[in-house]
């Protein structure tokens, strides 16, 4: 069991080093010994030592100073000080510097045995805790936010600035711009990241339901409330509450929420028990809240309480340079989930994607790529794989004679279908011979 535990004895007295080395070797530990700080630091460079027994008084660099150096090399090593003369000051200083404990020479074998057993347990727990935290970070990592445009770089800077604080953040942006993704990125980079981020879509719920969702309810609070239920405010305790579509909250709930934000306490619907909560608020809206305040449909005090730090996400049409990296990102994301080997987008298809205005923003783009990958037959997405509404948007305005319009339309469909005559004829709802005749008539050639 102990063969993986390594222990370093640092003491200028050889007899102490020899005795402790022997004592711990009998326990099966890997034991090293150093007579001074320099040798200890050299051994620390060579391998990791989980437990370090450190003499406080040594010639040259003393134990206290050495401890600080050790911490720079390995912050997780457990340090136990050995002192010949126990003084409260030294002990307090050692413990303040992060030592696990200290022992006085001569050491009681029973004390030493318990101390090291506890140190090993503590070390194992610390390592497990670290591993679990890393896993939590991995699990709670939000999807990647893709953006190379200067507007997005500004957004990233703002996320970095505000994440470490507890400030309320309002994220503005059109539908589908990735407001929730930004909220998750702020949470994931905040001190609250080991607690939950609880999302509530305020626009999707009627008045009474939203109130119950936010505040929870006691049993029998209303018809159908058969159980006591915790609300989102309670669930978000310690973490972040993300209020999506905050502009859709009714006036009464706005007032109730304002009270909670101010006092950090509330009662469940139908209950009297005061529940204290601690959460950070991030909200998002695509509405013109300033106009809503002017019209009296959004409380001014609530608006000012929420609009402390505002982040605006530009629509996709204003940062077309981000479309190719986004397309590639969605391509690889859905390739994994679909198990389809579609690896690229043809230049024509990419051109279409860039020229499109994307009223539904990034969400619409992702849906378009996902759908194209479902229908795509080759390893490259071609214009024909893209949803039809894209092609409509790219269609040049119709003008000129009827034969001109027909020529342009046939050429367009042929391009869309990658000059697959059968499929093009199906789209045009004419037979293949007629299509060949039209191609010949208009002198169309594959570009």
């Amino acid at each position, binding site marked *: 069991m102990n063969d993986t535990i390594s222990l370093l004895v640092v003491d200028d007295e050889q007899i102490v080093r020899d005795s402790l080395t022997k*004592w711990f070797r009998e326990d099966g530990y890997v034991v090293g010994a150093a007579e001074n700080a320099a040798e200890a630091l050299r051994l620390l460079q060579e391998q990791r030592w989980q437990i370090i027994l450190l003499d406080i008084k040594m010639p040259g660099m003393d134990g206290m100073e050495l401890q600080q150096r050790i911490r720079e090399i390995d912050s997780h090593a457990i340090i136990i000080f050995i002192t010949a003369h126990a003084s409260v000051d030294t002990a307090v200083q050692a413990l303040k510097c992060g030592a696990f404990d200290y022992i006085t020479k001569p050491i009681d074998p029973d004390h*030493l045995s318990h101390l090291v057993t506890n140190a090993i347990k503590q070390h194992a727990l610390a390592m497990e805790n670290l591993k679990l935290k890393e896993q939590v970070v991995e699990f709670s990592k939000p999807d990647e936010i893709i953006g190379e445009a200067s507007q997005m770089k500004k957004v990233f800077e703002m996320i970095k600035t505000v994440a470490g604080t507890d400030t309320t953040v309002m994220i503005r942006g059109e539908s589908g711009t990735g407001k929730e993704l930004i909220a998750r990125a702020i949470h994931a980079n905040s001190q609250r990241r080991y607690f939950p981020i609880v999302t509530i879509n305020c626009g999707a719920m009627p008045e009474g339901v939203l109130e119950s969702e936010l505040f929870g309810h006691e049993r029998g609070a209303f018809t159908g409330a058969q159980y006591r239920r915790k609300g989102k405010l309670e669930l978000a305790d310690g973490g972040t509450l993300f209020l999506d579509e905050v502009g859709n909250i009714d006036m009464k709930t706005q007032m109730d929420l304002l009270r909670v934000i101010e006092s950090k306490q509330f009662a469940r619907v139908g209950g009297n028990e005061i529940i204290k909560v601690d959460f950070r608020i991030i909200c998002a809206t695509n509405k013109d809240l300033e106009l809503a305040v002017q019209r009296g449909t959004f409380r001014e005090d609530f608006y000012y309480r929420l609009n402390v730090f505002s982040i605006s996400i530009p629509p996709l049409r204003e940062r077309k340079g981000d479309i190719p990296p986004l397309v590639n990102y969605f391509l690889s994301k859905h390739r994994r989930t679909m198990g389809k080997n579609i690896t690229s987008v043809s230049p024509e298809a990419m051109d279409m994607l860039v020229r499109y205005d994307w009223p539904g923003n990034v969400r619409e783009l992702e849906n378009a790529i996902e759908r194209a990958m479902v229908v795509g037959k080759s390893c490259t997405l071609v214009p024909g794989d893209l949803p039809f509404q894209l092609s409509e948007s790219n269609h040049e305005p119709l003008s000129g004679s009827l034969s001109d319009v027909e020529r342009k339309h046939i050429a367009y469909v042929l391009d869309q279908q990658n000059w697959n005559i059968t499929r093009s004829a199906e789209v045009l709802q004419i037979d293949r011979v007629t299509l060949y005749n039209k191609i010949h008539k208009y002198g169309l050639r594959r570009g």
Partner: protein
Amino acid sequence: MSCLRQAGAGITKQFYVLRMSSSVHIINSSSLSPDELEHVSRSVEAIIGARVHRSHLRVELERAFDSSRGQYNSSVLLAQLLSLKQSLPGKIIALVDVDLYVPVLTFVYGEAQLEGAAAIVSTHRLHNSFYGVDENRPLLIERVEKEIVHELGHTFGLFHCHQFECVMRSSTYVEEIDFKKATMCKECEGVLYRKVRGS
């Protein structure tokens, strides 16, 4: 055969014969009577499986005495035993009544040279009277047996064991010695087998 059963832990006859080819010399500088020492020797022989000889040599305790602590430095005594290697081939274990210490520790029940030739055991803290309780001679003999087997185990290269009942479990107070058995667990027995076969 009864010895084999006592040694326990699935010991084979071949292994028993192999181990009997090694020998242990006990130097008694304690107050144990010849009969008690004979009993201890036979028990240790059965458990370790090595021939146990009683030596008439004595340990010079005075050289290891530390007047400031009122105790005897066990490492000094161990060095003294190692100097007897020429005249006593095999393992040497000394039994003393004095309170032993190693410089950094307040006391030790015994000390051994890991995978070496010598070991020492003190009866000082094995007496009930040390803890203010009525003396119990059979219990003392049992404790002595366990400590001798434990320290000899170290000389054969065994580390401390985590099995509660194994004689190789580390004991820092006397109740722990009473809790464990005088024999080794299967794992330690196996390690001992490999060590003896390899030597």
